[in-house]
């Protein structure tokens, strides 16, 4: 298996030569088709990691390679979703989901002529995440959980090879969150997309990911890497098994240690 994302010994400092060092000596690899989770104490540079991989920031030292190419500018093969769904309120949900297609070079010139095909694709995605028929509604007519589902559709509409999720379920209630874990689990299984999930929620990480990276406090680097042994497809019941809880417990201990060191 080839690496889709490979980060080598990366330093990223904000605000000039004596600014904050956000990550230092960061090294990690994510295989194609893999579901990776990144956990760590707050302020460990997880968001910086997002921006490095998507090409929004270029590191001062080290190399970031995505899909075989060194990242020197924004890479459009990535879809992103944040905790804040950032749906545009003047567009319907469907129009929001189609927004990336108006931007990505590969699609923007085809959009007008092939509108129907793209709309079908969007409707299809909406159905997968359980939002069938709400495409014509405005985002503010949807609940928080529904908006986050639509947000996932928007991140996936241009068929990205890599999906970067920055705590996408942070603001949701426990039950909605579990529902969306299943949605993202099924999306990953069905679309074969590579996913990097940045999260604070250790149970979320263990339930969803194949591999978990534990980051240290600022300046962030990967202190530990775990392979999650549980077989797919995983059921929510898994979370009540001893092996699952043991793994969460171990992760919890490591992050607590990483915090103390800081």
């Amino acid at each position, binding site marked *: 298996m080839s690496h889709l994302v490979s980060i080598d010994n990366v330093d990223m400092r904000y605000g000039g030569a004596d600014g904050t060092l956000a990550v230092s000596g960061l090294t990690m690899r994510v295989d194609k088709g893999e579901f990776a989770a990144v956990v760590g104490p707050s302020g460990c540079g997880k968001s910086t990691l997002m*921006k490095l991989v*998507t*090409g*929004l920031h270029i590191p001062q030292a080290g190399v970031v390679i995505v899909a075989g190419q060194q990242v020197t*500018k*924004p*890479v*459009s093969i*990535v879809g*992103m*979703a*944040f905790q*804040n769904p*950032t749906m*545009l*309120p*003047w567009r319907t949900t469907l129009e929001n989901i189609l*927004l*990336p297609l*108006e*931007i*990505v*070079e590969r699609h923007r010139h085809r959009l007008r002529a092939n509108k129907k095909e793209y709309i079908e694709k969007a409707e299809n995605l909406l159905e997968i995440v359980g939002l069938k028929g709400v495409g014509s509604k*405005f985002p*503010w*007519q949807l*609940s928080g959980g529904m908006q986050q589902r639509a947000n996932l559709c*928007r*991140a996936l509409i*241009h068929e990205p090879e890599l999906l970067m999720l920055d705590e996408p379920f942070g603001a949701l209630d426990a039950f909605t969150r579990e529902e969306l874990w299943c949605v993202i689990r099924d999306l990953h299984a069905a679309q074969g997309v590579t996913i990097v999930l940045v999260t604070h929620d250790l149970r979320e990480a263990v339930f969803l990911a194949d591999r978990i990276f534990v980051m240290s406090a600022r300046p962030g680097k990967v202190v530990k890497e775990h392979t999650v042994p549980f077989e797919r497809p995983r059921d929510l019941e898994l979370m009540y098994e001893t092996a699952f809880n043991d793994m969460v417990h171990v992760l919890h201990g490591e992050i607590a240690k990483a915090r103390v060191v800081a």
Partner: protein
Amino acid sequence: MTMAMQNRAAKPSTKPLMQRINWVRAAPFLYTLGLFVIWELSVIVFALPQTLLPAPTRVFEAIVQYWSPIWKNSLQTLYTTTLGFLIAVVAGLGIGLFIGWSKTIYAGLYPLMIGFNAIPKVALVPILVIWFGIGTVPAVLTAFLISFFPIVVNVATGLATIEPETEDVLRALGARKIDIMLKVGIPRSMPYFFGSLKIAITLAFVGSVVSETVASNYGLGNMMSSAQSQFNVPLVFAGLLMLAIEGIAMYALMAFIEKRMTGWAHRSTMAN
């Protein structure tokens, strides 16, 4: 709201009259009426001469008596105000988009704009008169100068406050600055823009009337200043009343446009 009123009026209701009246809708009229009643009564009670404070009945009398000049001058003021306001809309939108485009331009021009806005516009009228002579042109320009600032600030603010996440999502897809402006920035600043029109139109009246008062032979400002020099105080108040009416009408028009153009920004309060 209107629909509900009509429905209720059409149905024969058994409710007593007091409950059938929509008090919220009636309030603006009742309060205005109340103001005139209090005004009239105080003039009577304190026995004020009409050269000091004419009673509203006397003011309405003056409106009827001087209807022809009032009408002509009102139209003139409306014309200069609207023209100045329209120029302010175009220029304000343009400058606002320009300022909001980049953080550097925003930082550089903002203090200049504040400084310019702090200058009392009445002080500019003599300069405008030197450049353009007295009459319509300085009135239009004063209306423009006083009303374009809120438009600029609001449009620029709308552009400058795009959520960083939205920008990140789009930039990661390879969006250029112009894409982000067209897809997010400009639609996003529209509620700010239409909101600012309400402020701008009332300021435009202030500008045009100030200029007409100081340097013009037409308009309500000029009419009031000549009425004042003849101690025709009821006519001065008639002019003020006409200005208030024009101001309310234009404000209502702007509020209506705002609601029509950016309904999504208002409807969001109805979300569950």
